[in-house]
């Protein structure tokens, strides 16, 4: 669907005909997507349409049923005859950052330890260096003063910013954000969106699932609309959100206007 051909290294994530079934429920029914380096790709769609499943497939938290995918220089085929070892999967995941709706910070670690954990345990980065980097990341998300605080003493917005810093600490090729503001009190949404906005300015490649349409219009490079496991329409934020062609997208957006 891309109009002009792209140089291979201009594309950070390339997904082809990806499907995911749970028994005989097909949650993702053949999705293809190109995400360019440094761009924020937004994904919108009604509840249950398969957005989370799609995102989790990209991180191999779910094993796709068929299709193929490339992130950076790592290409993977799914389906019969294609099995990855646990080590290969782990290595792949370490290059893909994931932020969850419910934060899932490690409760037995301080904010700083949460951010250090990936580099130290997975990448075997020296402690001093990991701490240095973690401190810088906490400062970047505006939480330098919370470094020694345990997650239960953080507000939802602060916890989510720590979770973003934790994912960034792995220096991922791409960040996956799954409705990261949906569990927050309305007054805390802004501080998290501000951090994501900052990341788009810095050219972080991201795939963002969200219901924040105003935010999508403001920062998305491209948007896709998913419905019932399929991508029904894709384009720039303006094209998709202001001049939707697909009738299902039109009715989906109408619900947000009211």
């Amino acid at each position, binding site marked *: 669907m891309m109009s002009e051909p792209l140089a291979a290294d201009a594309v950070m994530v390339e997904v082809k005909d990806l499907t995911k079934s749970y028994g005989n429920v097909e949650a993702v029914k053949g999705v293809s997507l190109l995400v360019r380096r440094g761009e924020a790709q937004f994904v919108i769609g009604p509840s249950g349409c398969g957005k989370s499943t799609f995102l989790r497939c990209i*991180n191999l*938290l779910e094993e796709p049923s068929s299709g193929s995918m490339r992130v950076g220089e790592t290409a993977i085929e799914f389906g019969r005859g294609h099995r990855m070892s*646990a*080590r290969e999967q*782990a*290595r*792949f*995941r*370490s*290059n*893909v*950052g*994931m932020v*969850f709706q*419910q934060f*899932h*910070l*490690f*409760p*037995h670690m301080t904010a700083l330890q949460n951010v250090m*954990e*990936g580099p130290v*345990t*997975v990448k075997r980065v020296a402690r001093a260096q990991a701490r240095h980097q973690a401190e810088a990341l906490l400062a970047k998300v505006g939480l330098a003063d919370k470094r020694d605080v*345990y997650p239960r003493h953080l507000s939802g917005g602060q916890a989510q910013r720590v*979770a973003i810093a*934790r*994912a960034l600490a*792995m220096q991922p090729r791409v960040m996956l954000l799954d409705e990261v503001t949906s569990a927050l009190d309305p007054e805390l949404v802004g501080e998290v969106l501000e951090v994501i906005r900052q990341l788009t300015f810095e050219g972080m490649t991201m795939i963002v699932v969200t219901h924040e349409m105003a935010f999508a219009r403001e920062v998305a490079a491209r948007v896709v609309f998913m419905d019932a496991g399929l991508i029904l329409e894709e384009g720039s934020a303006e094209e998709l959100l202001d001049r939707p062609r697909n009738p299902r997208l039109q009715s989906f957006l109408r619900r947000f206007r009211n």
Partner: protein
Amino acid sequence: MEYSWDFSIVFLRPGNWARGFAVTMVYAVATTVAGLVLGLVCGMVMLSRHTILASPIHGYVQFFRSTPLLIQIVWFYYALPVVIGLNIPAWLAAGLGLTLYMGAFSAEIFRAGIMSIDKGQWQAARALGMMPVQMMRRIILPQATRRMVPPFVNQSVLQLKNTSLLSVVAVPDLMYTGTLLVSETFRPLEIYTALAVFYFIILYPLQRLAKLLEQRDDV
């Protein structure tokens, strides 16, 4: 009718009491520790999806949790040597029942402790690229052990009380010492009261510890 209490007879055989105390403590500590180790191993197997190994372990755990310990002890003491055709020493046979009993409960505590950790913790650890062993060591076990300590302490308290059942197979523990003294003095009220006090003195500190651990709120 007036009963005249005479607690002085309790102190008739201090040497026997000392031995009884030592026997009770050794059995309690040894079978608790051995049972814990057994329980950890069994709990791990139950958590793994290794069905061929896991189903007999499930069977063992269910069986020992659902039958009276007294029968287990008696069975190991009298029947096991016959069944395996080996003359295993009496002290070992008596301890085996207690150990397997502790092992079954520990396995379940361990399994339940791990399972109680939120799925999101596993996902977050996997998303960072951790291998299963790293996830267990860094993320799951540190959280799960805090939850498992109170039930483990409770189970150990029960285990120490349960050693009193060893007296039925003539292991000279505290309970057995008391029973002998009763048949010598015909003073069961004083002696069983004293026994209760002895067990209380041993177990009260452990109970307090369990309470403290439960109230700890760091996770």
